[in-house]
C-alpha cells in the first residue's frame, strides 16, 4: 500500500469520528448533572426546575419585573399568611380575653371594695385642680380617642358582633364608614397626644414617694393614707402608657393611613400588628383610668369637669400637692384667677349652665 492512499482514508475517518464525538458531547454533557443527581439525589425529592422556581416565589424572594413599584418584584407575600394567622388566631381572641378579664376584674373590685370615699367626708370647700385649658386638652383627646377606639374595635371585632345584627351588606357599609372615620381622626390623635403631653408632662416625672405609693398599692387595698404629689405613681404610669402607646398608635397609624410613601407589605403588616397591640393595651388600661376617675374614687370626676376638688379629697389623695397649693394661695393677694372661674362670691361655686 502507498502513503497517499492511507492518509486519504484516515483523513476521512478522523473527520467523521470528530463530528460524531462533538455531537455526542453536545448531547451528553448536559445530562451529567442529572446523572449525578440521579445517582446522589438532593433532599426534596425528584428535582423539578418548575418547583424550584415556585418555591423561590413563595418564599418572597424579589425577582425583577418591568413593573415599577414597591414590592412589585414579589409576586406572593409569604409573610402575609403569618400576619393573617396572627390577627385572626391570636390578636382578636387574646385581645378580647385581655379586655374582658380586666373589665371583669374592675367590676369585681368595685363590687368587693366599693368606691374609695373621701376620708372624713367632703368639707364643701373647693380648690382648683385643673384649669380650662388642661380640661379642654383632656376631653379633646378623649373624644378623638373614643371615636378611634370605637371605629377601631368595629374594624377588629365588628364581623363577629355586628354581622348578626346588621347582616353582611349592612356591616359592609358600617365597617367601610368606620374605616373612613378611623382614617380621618387618626392624624388628629397625634395632635391631641402632643397637646396632652405638653400640658401634663411636667408633673409626671418620677418623684420621691412614687415607689412607696406603688408598694402600698396606692392605698386601694386595705386603705390607709399614702402620700402623693399632684399626680400619684399610678397616674404617672397611665400618662406614660397613654403617651407612648399613643405615639406608637399614631406613628403606626400614619404608616397604615398614608400608604403612599413606599411602605411595602411587610412594613404595613408590622405596623398593623403594633397598632393593634398598642390599641388593645391603651384601651384596656383606659378602663382602669375611667373607673378610677368616675365610680372608683369619690370626688374625682369634678376635677376634670368643672376643675375643682374638695379640700378633703386633695388632702387624702394628693397631700403634697394640696400643701403646695395652700402655700402658694396664702402668699398671693386676694385676686381671683384671671383666666377662668374661681368660685363665685360667697365661696359657692358657680356651676350654672
Amino acid at each position, binding site marked *: 500500500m502507498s502513503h497517499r492512499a492511507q492518509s486519504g482514508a484516515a483523513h476521512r475517518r478522523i473527520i467523521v469520528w470528530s463530528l460524531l464525538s462533538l455531537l455526542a458531547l453536545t448531547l451528553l454533557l448536559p445530562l451529567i448533572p442529572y446523572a449525578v443527581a440521579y445517582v446522589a439525589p438532593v433532599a426534596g425529592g425528584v428535582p423539578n426546575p418548575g418547583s424550584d422556581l415556585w418555591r423561590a416565589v413563595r418564599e418572597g424572594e424579589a425577582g425583577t419585573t418591568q413593573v415599577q413599584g414597591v414590592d412589585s418584584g414579589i409576586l406572593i407575600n409569604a409573610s402575609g399568611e403569618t400576619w393573617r394567622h396572627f390577627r385572626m388566631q391570636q390578636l382578636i381572641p387574646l385581645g378580647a380575653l385581655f379586655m374582658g378579664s380586666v373589665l371583669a376584674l374592675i367590676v369585681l373590685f368595685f363590687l368587693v371594695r366599693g368606691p374609695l370615699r373621701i376620708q372624713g367626708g367632703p368639707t364643701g370647700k373647693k380648690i382648683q385642680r385643673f384649669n*380650662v385649658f388642661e380640661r379642654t386638652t383632656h*376631653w*379633646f383627646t378623649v373624644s378623638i380617642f373614643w371615636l378611634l377606639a370605637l371605629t377601631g374595635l368595629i374594624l377588629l371585632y365588628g364581623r363577629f358582633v355586628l354581622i348578626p345584627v346588621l347582616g353582611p351588606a349592612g356591616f359592609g357599609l358600617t365597617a367601610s364608614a368606620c374605616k*373612613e372615620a378611623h382614617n380621618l381622626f387618626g*392624624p388628629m390623635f397625634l395632635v391631641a397626644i402632643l397637646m396632652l403631653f405638653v400640658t401634663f408632662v411636667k408633673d409626671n416625672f418620677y418623684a420621691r414617694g412614687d415607689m412607696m405609693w406603688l408598694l402600698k398599692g396606692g392605698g386601694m387595698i386595705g386603705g390607709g393614707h399614702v402620700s402623693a404629689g399632684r399626680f400619684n405613681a399610678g397616674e404617672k404610669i397611665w400618662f406614660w402608657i397613654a403617651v407612648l402607646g399613643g405615639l406608637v398608635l399614631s406613628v403606626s397609624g400614619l404608616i397604615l393611613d398614608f400608604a403612599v410613601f413606599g411602605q411595602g407589605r411587610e412594613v404595613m403588616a408590622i405596623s398593623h400588628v403594633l397598632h393593634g397591640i398598642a390599641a388593645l393595651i391603651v384601651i384596656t388600661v383606659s378602663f382602669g383610668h375611667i373607673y378610677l376617675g368616675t365610680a372608683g374614687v369619690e370626688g374625682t370626676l369634678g376635677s376634670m369637669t368643672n376643675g375643682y376638688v374638695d379640700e378633703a379629697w386633695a388632702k387624702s389623695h394628693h397631700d403634697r400637692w394640696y400643701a403646695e397649693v395652700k402655700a402658694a394661695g396664702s402668699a398671693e393677694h386676694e385676686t381671683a384667677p384671671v383666666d377662668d372661674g374661681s368660685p363665685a362670691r360667697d365661696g359657692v361655686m358657680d356651676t350654672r349652665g
Partner: protein
Amino acid sequence: MFAQLVDGIFWDIALWVFALGVLWRILSIFRVRNKPDYSVPRGSGLVGAIGANLRRFMPRAEMVSRTRLHVVAGYLFHLGLFALLLFAAPHVLFIEEQTGLGWTPMPYWAFIVAAQLAFIGLLLLWIHRVMHPVTRLISDADDHIAAILTFVVMLTGCMALIEEFDGLRVLHRFMVELWLVYFPFSRLMHAFMFIPSRAFTGAWFGRRGVKA
C-alpha cells in the same frame, strides 16, 4: 325610596327654606322704627362700618393672650370648613352639576389637611365651650345643636368618600338638608349677621373718631 327623596324634593325644600329664611332674618332686623342720630359726626360712619368689618377678623393686641384658643381653633374650623365646602372635589362636581359653575378642586392631600384642621377646630371650640365657666353659663341648646349638627355633617361627608356605598352619600346629603333648614332659625345666622352688626358698631364708633 329615601335616597330619591333626599336627592329630590328634600333638597329643593331645604334650599328654599334656607334662602327665604336667611333673607327674612336679615330683613326683619329693619322692621323696627329707628330714631335718627342728630349728633355732629367727627369721623365717617361708613369708613368706620367697613373698617370694623375688616378689623374684627383679628383680635386687638390687648386681647391676644386672653383669646388664643378662640382665635386659633376658630380659624382652624372656619377656614378648614370653607376650604372643604368650596374646594373639595365632590363638592366642586356637585356645584358644577347644579349651577354650571366649576373651578379647580383642591388635591386629595389638601382635602385631608383641611378636614383635619376643621375637625380639630370644631372639637376644641365645643369642648372649650363646655369647660369654660363663662360659656357654660351663657350657652344654650342652640349653641350645642349647631355645633353637633355641623360636626355630623362634616363626619358623614368624610365617610361618604367611600363612593361604593351610595347610602353614605345620601346620609351626608340628608344631614346637610337638616343643617340648611336649621340654619335660618339658629345661631348659625351669625354667618350673615356679623356684617350688619360690625357695621353698626363700626359706624357708631367711627362717627366718634374711634377705630372699632
